[in-house]
C-alpha cells in the first residue's frame, strides 16, 4: 500500500533536487570566472599603449562618473573606442560585454548602438535636409548647427563604433573590479565583486526609438514603454489618482552627474497594488534588472521583490501611446534600493522617438556595498 507513495515522494524529491540546487549553484560558480576569462582575453589582444588607456585604478572615482547620455564628442569618454580597435580586439571586447550581460541585455545594447548607426546614416544625408524650415531644423529635433559643422569636419559623431570600454581595477574572481561600456545613449557601469554583479548606475537611451533594419522593426526600449503603460492601464481610478503626478517632468531627475542622491518618492505605493499589478510592476523593473547576467539578475530581482511594498510608481504625461510606438510620458519607479526613470525627450521633435532611461540603486551604485572593504 505504502510502496507507491514512497516511490512518488522519492521521485518528487529527486526532481526537486535536480531542478533547484545544482543549476543555480553552477550558474553562480561559472558567471564570474567566465567574465574574468573574457576580460583577460580582451586585454591580451591589446598592445601596451591600448592596455594603458583601457585600465584605470579601481578607486578612480573621476573615471567611475565619466559617463553620459550625450554623444562622445560632446562628453569625451576615456578608455578605448571600438573605432580604435582591430577586428579581433573588437570581437573580444564585445564578447566581454556579452559575458556580463544576459542575452536579452546584450541584444538591447546592440539595438541601442544600431540606433546610433541609423542616426549616423541619416546625419550624413544631403546637407540641404537640415536647412532652415526643413524637417531637421532645430525646431524638429535635428542636430544643431554647431554639431553639424563639427560632424562634417572631424568625421562622424554617431555610429556603432563610437562606444568606449574601460576597466577599473584588475579582473578578478575574488576582488572587486569594474567594467564600463558606453557612448551615446548608453552607459553600463558593472561592478563584479566575487560572485556578485552590480549593474547600477546604468543609462540606456534610444534615438530613434523606432527604426527598421532589414525589414524588421526595432524598438530598443519598447518593452520599457509598453510594460509600464500596461501597468498604468491596469490601475483603477483611485490608484491612478495617486500614480499620476499633476506636473510636467521635462527630463531625468537623477541622470548623469547626480550620483548619491535619493529624492523623496512620489506616486502610488506598491503596497496599494493587487498581486497582478505587483507582478506587472516587477515585470517593468525586470527590463533593467535583467540586463545583467542571470545569476546577478536573479539576486537583484529578489532584493527588489523584498522591498516591493515600499516601491513607488509615478507617471507624468499622456496615458496612452500611438499603436506600435513608445509612450510620450515620463515615469519613475523608486524603492528602498531602486530608482528607475524613463524620460522621453521632446527637444522640439517627437518625444515618442527619443528616450533616456536611468537605472540606479541609491544604496549600491558602483557596487559600493560590496566593493567597500
Amino acid at each position, binding site marked *: 500500500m505504502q510502496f507507491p507513495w514512497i516511490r512518488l515522494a522519492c521521485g518528487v524529491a529527486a526532481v526537486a533536487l535536480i531542478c533547484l540546487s545544482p543549476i543555480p549553484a553552477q550558474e553562480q560558480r561559472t558567471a564570474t570566472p567566465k567574465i574574468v576569462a573574457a576580460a583577460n582575453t580582451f586585454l591580451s589582444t591589446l598592445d601596451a599603449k591600448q592596455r594603458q588607456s583601457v585600465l584605470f585604478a579601481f578607486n578612480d572615482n573621476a573615471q567611475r562618473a565619466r559617463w553620459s547620455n550625450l554623444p562622445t564628442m560632446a562628453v569625451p569618454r576615456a578608455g578605448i573606442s571600438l573605432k580604435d580597435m582591430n577586428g579581433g580586439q573588437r570581437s573580444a571586447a564585445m564578447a566581454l560585454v556579452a559575458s556580463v550581460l544576459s542575452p536579452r541585455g546584450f541584444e538591447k545594447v546592440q539595438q541601442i548602438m544600431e540606433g546610433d548607426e541609423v*542616426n549616423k546614416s541619416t546625419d550624413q544625408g544631403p546637407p540641404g535636409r537640415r536647412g532652415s524650415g526643413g524637417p531637421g531644423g532645430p525646431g524638429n529635433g535635428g*542636430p*544643431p548647427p554647431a554639431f553639424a559643422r563639427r560632424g562634417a569636419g572631424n568625421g562622424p559623431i554617431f555610429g556603432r563604433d563610437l562606444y568606449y570600454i574601460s576597466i577599473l581595477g584588475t579582473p578578478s574572481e575574488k576582488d572587486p573590479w569594474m567594467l564600463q561600456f558606453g557612448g551615446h545613449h548608453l552607459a553600463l557601469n558593472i561592478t563584479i565583486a566575487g560572485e556578485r554583479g552590480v549593474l547600477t548606475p546604468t543609462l540606456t537611451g534610444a534615438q530613434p526609438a523606432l527604426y527598421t533594419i532589414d525589414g524588421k522593426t526595432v524598438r530598443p526600449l519598447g518593452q520599457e514603454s509598453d510594460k509600464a503603460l500596461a501597468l498604468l492601464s491596469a490601475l483603477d481610478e483611485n490608484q491612478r489618482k495617486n500614480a499620476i503626478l499633476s506636473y510636467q517632468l521635462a527630463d531625468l531627475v537623477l541622470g548623469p552627474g547626480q550620483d548619491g542622491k535619493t529624492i523623496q*518618492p512620489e506616486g502610488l505605493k506598491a503596497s*496599494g497594488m493587487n498581486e497582478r499589478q505587483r507582478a506587472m510592476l516587477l515585470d517593468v523593473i525586470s527590463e533593467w534588472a535583467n540586463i545583467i547576467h542571470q545569476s546577478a539578475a536573479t539576486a537583484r530581482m529578489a532584493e527588489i521583490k523584498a522591498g516591493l511594498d515600499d516601491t513607488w510608481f509615478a507617471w507624468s504625461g499622456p496615458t496612452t501611446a500611438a499603436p506600435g510606438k513608445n509612450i510620450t510620458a515620463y515615469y519613475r519607479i523608486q524603492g528602498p534600493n531602486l530608482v528607475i526613470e524613463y524620460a522621453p525627450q521632446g527637444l522640439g*521633435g517627437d518625444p515618442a522617438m527619443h528616450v533616456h532611461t536611468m537605472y540606479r540603486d541609491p544604496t549600491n551604485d558602483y557596487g559600493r556595498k560590496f566593493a567597500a572593504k
Partner: protein
Amino acid sequence: MKMKLTAAITIVLTLGMPGFAHRLDEYLQATILSIETNRVQFSMRLIPGVAVSSGVIASMDTNADGVISESEQRAYVEQVLRDLSLNVDGHPLEPRLVSAHFPKIDQMKEGLGEIQIEFIADLPPGGAHRKLVFEHRHPSPIAAYLVNCLIPRDRDIHVVNQSRNRNQSFYAVEYTQRVGRLDAVSATGWSGIMPGALSGFGSMFRLGMRHIAEGTDHLLFLLVLLLPAPLFARGSHWAGFAGLRQSVVHILKVVTAFTVGHSITLALAGLGVIHTPSRPIEILIAVSILVSSIHALRPLFPGREAALAAFFGLVHGLAFAATLDQLGLDRWVRIVNILAFNLGIETMQMVVVVAVMPSLVLLSPTRAYSFLRIGGALFAAVASIGWIGERLLHIPSLVDVIVDGIARRGIWMAAFLFLISVVCWRVPTGVFFRDNGPRRVI
C-alpha cells in the same frame, strides 16, 4: 541579433531626425533641496538649450565682449537668486550663496553648458510641522523646471507632502520634525512650538476632513444607513416615525458605532499591525452601501443598524488607512497624525450629520419621508452597483462623476432638503398626502 555593418536602414519617421540628448529649445532649471533642522541646502543646475543659449548668454554677458567675466557671473547668480521666492511657514528666507560654477561659453553655445549654483537658507526655529516654499517669481516661458527634495538625512525629519504647479515653477514641501529635543525647546520656547505643533496637527486634521468630504462613498454609506433611523419596523416594512428622542438616539448610536469601527481599523492599519490590499476593501465599501440601501428599502436587521455600522466601519477604516499609507510616514510620526486625521474625519462626519439630522427628524413623521427614503436608497443602490462593477470588473461608469457632482453641491442639497422638510412639517400632511395611518407615535 548580430551587428550588421551594411544594412538597409530606413528611418520610419522623417520627424525622428537625428538629434541630441541635450537641451534644445528649453532652459532646464533643476533644483534639489536638502532639508536640515536649521537650514536648507539648494543645489541648482541651469542648462540653456542650444536654440535659446544665445539669449541666455546675452543676458549674462552684459558688455557683449564674448566673455562672461567674474563680475558678470556674480551679477547673473544674484539675479537668479533674487528671482526666487523662498519662505518657511510664511517667513521669507534669505538665500546665501555657497558656490557657483560656470561652464565655458562655447559649451553653453552648444547647449552643453551647465551652470551649477549651490546656496543655503537658514531656517528660523519652528514647530513640529513646517511648510517650505520655493518659487520662481518670474517663470520664464522657455524654462523647464524640475524641483525635488532629498529624503532628509536627519531621521527625525519626515517629508509629508510635496506640491507643485504644472510647470514646477512653484514648489512647496511640508515636513515634520521632532521638537521634543531640549535644544529645540530652549531655542523656541513653548510659544514657538505650540503653533507649529498645532499646524502639523491641523494639516492632518484638514486632510481627514477633506478625505471624507471627497470620499463620497463613505458619506453615502452613512447617510443611507441613517435614512431609516427615525423609523420603526413592522414586519418586513418600515412603519411610522419612532419618536423624536428615539430618532436622535438612534442616529447618534449609528454614527458612534461607525466611528468606533473605523477608528479601530484605522489605528491598526495605520500602525502597520494589519495590512490589506486596497481593491477588496474598495469593493467591500461599495457592498456596504448596497446592503445599507436595501436595508433602507426593507428592514433587513431592524434595531441592529449600530452593529452593522460598526462592522462596516471596520472596513471603511482600512480605506482611510490607505490614504495615510500614501503619505509614507514613519510609524512614530503616525500616532499623532492618525489621531489628527481621525478627528478630521469625525468632525466632517459630524458636520454632515448635523446638517441632515434636523431634516430627517422633521420629515420622518410625514408621508413625504418615504419618497426621500426610497429615492435615496434606490440612488445609493444604483451608485453602489456602479462602483462594484467598476472596482470588481473594471466596467467604467459615470457613478463617480454623478455622485461627486452632487456631493460638491452638498450644502445646497442639505439646505433644500431642510426647506422641504420644514414645509412638509408645517403644512398639514393631508394637504399633500392623504393621512391614512398612525403618524405620531409619541
